[in-house]
């Protein structure tokens, strides 16, 4: 019968779980300070975004694997999370690559890559509002 036999491994696992939770917690605090500290250096060329998102991914992996027990609980739960991440990648990736490869005219005025909307766009400090469409005389 699984009664008393099943309790012992849980008890044994519990002691190590407390230590594991504490280690993961300290790692999460350290990574939080790390991403904050690195953001103050203004890493050039878009690498700052990559570093920040890389650290966020590492932190969320720690939370999902150890606080949410995906490390111990094999099977369908992992599959659900991985499937949702595939759709996250599809949604963000395809939408961003659409924006990145657009004909410039289809981007909103004032944005990067849009065509200049007026002469002041070449250096004047005042922001350029959307051009008057000629409705006023």
């Amino acid at each position, binding site marked *: 019968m699984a009664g008393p036999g099943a309790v012992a491994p849980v008890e044994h696992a519990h002691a190590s779980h*407390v230590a594991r939770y504490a280690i993961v917690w300290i790692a999460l605090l350290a990574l939080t300070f790390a991403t904050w500290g690195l953001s103050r250096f203004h890493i050039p060329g878009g690498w700052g975004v990559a570093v920040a998102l890389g650290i966020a991914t590492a932190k969320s992996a720690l939370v999902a694997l150890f606080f949410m027990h995906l490390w111990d609980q094999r099977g369908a739960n992992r599959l659900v999370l991985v499937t949702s991440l595939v759709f996250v990648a599809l949604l963000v990736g395809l939408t*961003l690559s659409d924006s990145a490869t657009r004909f410039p005219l289809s981007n909103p005025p004032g944005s990067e890559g849009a065509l200049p909307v007026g002469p002041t766009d070449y250096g004047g400090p005042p922001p350029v509002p959307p051009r008057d469409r000629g409705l006023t005389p």
Partner: protein
Amino acid sequence: MSETTATAAPSFLAHHFESLEKQTHAARLGMWLFLATEILLFTALFTAYAVYRYLFTPDFQAASRDLATWIGLVNTLVLVTSSFTVAMGYGRAVRGDGKGTRALFLVSVLLALVFLGFKVVEYSHHFHAGELPGRLYVSTRLQGPGAPIFYALYFLITGLHAVHVVVGMTILAVIGLRAGRGAYTREYHVPVELAGLYWHLVDLIWIFVFPLVYLI
């Protein structure tokens, strides 16, 4: 087999499940399916953020620098710590220590209140400074066309997250109080686990909100 197992298990077991183990697996799977929809809900907002940050990069960088980074940092530390206390509370439930679960879950609820307190400070600052979404934006600090869009996405993302914090702390309070009254046992504590899963997801979302909104 001990008498508690013999009497407790049937009352927790719904009649359409063969065993308590299968019931627990089904409950976990259902929770994970729900969490997947939550991830996709926030992904829609993150995608909007990504597109507009791509289109208005300098404006978004300026607006992001304008936020109080230390509040974001402190709130991240607070949420991560609350996730840790929830995990420890689940550890107590596994041992059948309902009072321990209650204490640790209530600590988590207090940390969630600290988080929301900082959010109130932040939001009231934005309201007074006129840093509001879309055409409500009246601040003169940032003039670019991207600033009102940044604040629209800022309030949508952090606002929806704050709603999740309120829901999560309500769940933790209810489950924690029930655990303190001895509603769960060493054999049956799946509600404690599912409440914890929800809270960890709220933490997980914030782990991405912090760098996206405050740091880059």
